[in-house]
C-alpha cells in the first residue's frame, strides 16, 4: 500500500490508490501509432511503449492500434503518437495525412493529446520544402514551415520548458523549422540546435498536440511529458483522473548521464 499525493485533484469516489490496481480495472485507453510502417526508424517505439506501460501500471487497459496509409482511421483514439522516417516514407504519409485531415483536425480541436516527432512534426506544420526543391504540404496543426538543410543537426540536446521542466534527448534532423509569429515552442534550447539551429526554440505546442525533434527516447527519459499526455487522455475520456506517481529512479539517472554527455 502506498500513500500518494496525486498531481491532480481526485474525483470523489474514485477510491484511494493502491499498488495492486486490477489490471485494466480503471478502464481502457486507446493508443494510436501513426504510420509505424513508414515512420518508425529512430526508436519511436519507445514513446508508445512508455505510454502503454505507464498506463498499465496505473490500472488502465491499453488498446494499441497501428494506423498506416490507407487503413480506416481510428477516430476514437485517445492518444496519437508518430515518429520520424525516411524521405520516401514521408511522401506516402503526406498524401495520407491530407485524406484524414478533417478527422484529425476535429480531434485536435477537441483536445486530444498527440505527440509528433521529427518527420511527423514537420508534416503537422504548413509545409516541408525538401532540399531537392519539392514541397510537401502539411496539415497545418502547427503554424510553422520547414526547409531541408544541407547539414544534419545531430546530437544530444537539453531544453527547458515552462510546463514540463527540463527535456532531454537526442536530435537528428536536416529540416530547419521556422515557427510562425504566434506559435508556442515546446521548449527553449539550453544545449543543442533545436528547430532551426538559430532561434533557440525546440518543438511546438498547440492545444494538446506536442511536436519535437527529440527522437525515440523522448518519453522514456522525460516521464513528466509522458504523464501529461496520459493525464490529458484519461481526463478527456473519463472526465475524472488520478495518476499514481511511479518510481522513476532509472529515468532520473539516465537523464543525469545524458545531460553530461558530449554532443
Amino acid at each position, binding site marked *: 500500500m502506498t500513500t500518494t499525493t496525486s498531481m491532480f485533484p481526485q474525483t470523489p469516489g474514485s477510491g484511494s490508490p493502491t499498488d495492486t490496481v486490477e489490471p485494466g480495472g480503471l478502464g481502457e485507453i486507446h493508443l494510436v501509432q501513426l504510420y509505424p*510502417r513508414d515512420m518508425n526508424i529512430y526508436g519511436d517505439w519507445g514513446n508508445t*511503449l512508455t505510454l502503454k506501460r505507464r498506463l498499465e501500471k496505473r490500472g488502465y487497459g491499453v488498446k494499441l492500434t497501428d494506423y498506416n496509409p490507407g487503413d480506416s482511421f481510428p477516430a476514437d483514439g485517445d492518444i496519437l503518437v508518430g515518429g520520424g522516417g*525516411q524521405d520516401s516514407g514521408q511522401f506516402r504519409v503526406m498524401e495520407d495525412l491530407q485524406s484524414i485531415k478533417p478527422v484529425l483536425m476535429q480531434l485536435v480541436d477537441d483536445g486530444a493529446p498527440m505527440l509528433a516527432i521529427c518527420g511527423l512534426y514537420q508534416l503537422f506544420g504548413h509545409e516541408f520544402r525538401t532540399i531537392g526543391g519539392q514541397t510537401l504540404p502539411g496539415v497545418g496543426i502547427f503554424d510553422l514551415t520547414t526547409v531541408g538543410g544541407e547539414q544534419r543537426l*545531430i546530437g544530444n540536446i537539453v531544453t527547458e520548458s515552462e510546463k514540463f521542466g527540463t527535456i532531454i534527448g537526442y536530435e*537528428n534532423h536536416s529540416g530547419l523549422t521556422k515557427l510562425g509569429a504566434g506559435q508556442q515552442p515546446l521548449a527553449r534550447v539550453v544545449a543543442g540546435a533545436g528547430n532551426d539551429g538559430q532561434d533557440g526554440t525546440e518543438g511546438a505546442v498547440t492545444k494538446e498536440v506536442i511536436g519535437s525533434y527529440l527522437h525515440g527516447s523522448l518519453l*522514456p527519459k522525460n516521464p513528466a511529458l509522458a504523464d501529461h499526455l496520459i493525464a490529458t487522455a484519461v481526463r478527456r475520456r473519463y472526465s475524472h483522473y488520478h495518476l499514481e506517481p511511479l518510481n522513476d529512479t532509472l529515468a532520473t539517472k*539516465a537523464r543525469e548521464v545524458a545531460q553530461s554527455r558530449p554532443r
Partner: protein
Amino acid sequence: MSRPLVRLLGQGVRAATKMRGGGSAFPGLVMEKLHPGFVAEQLARLPHGVVVVSGTNGKTTTTKMAVQLLESQGLKVFTNRTGSNFVRGVAASLLEEISLTGRFDADIAVLELDEAHAVHFVRQVKPRFALLLNVMRDQLDRFGEIDTTRQMLAQVAAATTEAVILNREDPRIASLAQDVQPDTRVLWYGLSEQLRPMFPSDDDMRAADGPAAPTPEGAPQPEPVVELAHFEATDVDFLVHGQPAQAKVHLYGVYNVYNAAGALALALTVTDDGRAVKAAGAGVESLLDELSRVTPAFGRGETITVGETPLQLLLVKNPAGFRLSLASAKPEAYATMIAINDEYADGRDVSWLWDVEFDSLRAGGVDLVTGTRAWDMALRLDYDQVPIQEVEPDLTESLHKFITAADGRPMRVFCTYTAMLSLRRALRAVADVPEI
C-alpha cells in the same frame, strides 16, 4: 621524390608506428599525402582484380570467410586484415605486404570497406566484384538516413566491372540491381522462404506485431547462386545453383550463417570465371570444407575462457544485430551482461535500443548493466520488465562483479564497440585474450 623512395618512406613510417604500437591507418595517411595514386596503382596490377565487401552488418566476418574460401582455391589473397576499413587502412596494409624490393605478390584483393569510404575508394579503383550485404540502421547519426547508405552502395555497384553479388532479401540491396552497368552481371544470394521471417528487414522491425512492409509488387524472385535453405546449430544446408550442399559453420549468430551464403556465392563467382582457379580439386566441395574452418573475427562472437568458464563477447550496434544476437541462444542458460557506450565510434545516439525487444531476457534476467549509457540501458530493460541485478557504469568494475556473479555459468556479454575494446583490455588480467 621518386616513387620507390616514397614507398620506402611509407614503410619506414609503418615500422616506426608499429614499434610505438600506433594506429594502423597512420602510415597509410602519410602515403596518401606523398603519393595519392599509390593504392590504385598497386591494386591495378593484381591479375584477378579487386573484390569489395560492403554493407552495414557483418563485413568483417564475411570478408574473413571470403578470403579463406579463395585461399583454399590456391589464390594468394591480399586483404585489409587490421580492420581499418578505410582507403588509408588499405594503403597501410599494402605497405606491409609489399616487400622492400617493391613486389606486391598477390592474385586478388578482398577488401572490407565502410559504406562511406567505399564511395571514395571506387573513385580510385574499379572493383571487379562487389558483395553487398545489407543496409540496416547503423551509424544513423553519422550518415543520417539509411536511404543515404543505399545511395553510397549504389555507387559501388555502378563502379563494379564484372559481377555484383546482392542479398536478395534486403529490399534496399536488391534494388541496387538497377544501378549496375549493363555489362556487369547481377548475381544473388538469398534465404529459403522458411527462413525469411528469421531475418526481418529494418522496415518491418518493430516490437509491436504490425503488418510487414509490402514487398515490391510484381518482381519475381531471382534465382540465387547460393540459398541458405535451413540450419540447426552448426549444421547448415545450402542450395548451390539449386543443388543441396551441406556445411558446418562454426560462427556465432544467425547473421553469420546467412553471410556465409554470401561469401560462398562470391567465392563461386570469382573461381567460376575460370581465370582464377589454380588449385586442383577446386569446387563446391572444397569450398564447403574450408567454410567449416572459419573462426569468428574479433568481437563477432569471440569466446574467451575465464578460469574454466567461457565468456562470449557479442558486438551490438543496431536493432537487427542485437535482436539476432539475443535470439541465437537460450538466455536462461547464461549469465548476462550488457555494456552500452556512446563514444563516437559506438554512435552517440542510443535511441535505437528502443527498437530491440528484450522480452527473451525476462525469465533469466540481466546480471550487470554497464557502460557510459548503463542507465539508459537499464531504463530500456525496465520497460520490457526484465529484472536487473545491478547497474554499474564502470566497465572494469562491472566485469569483475559479473564474473563473480556468474559463479560458473557460461557468460554472454552484449557490448558496443568501444565497450568491447575496454572489456577485452580488462579481461587480460584474468584470461588469455588474443591480440587484435
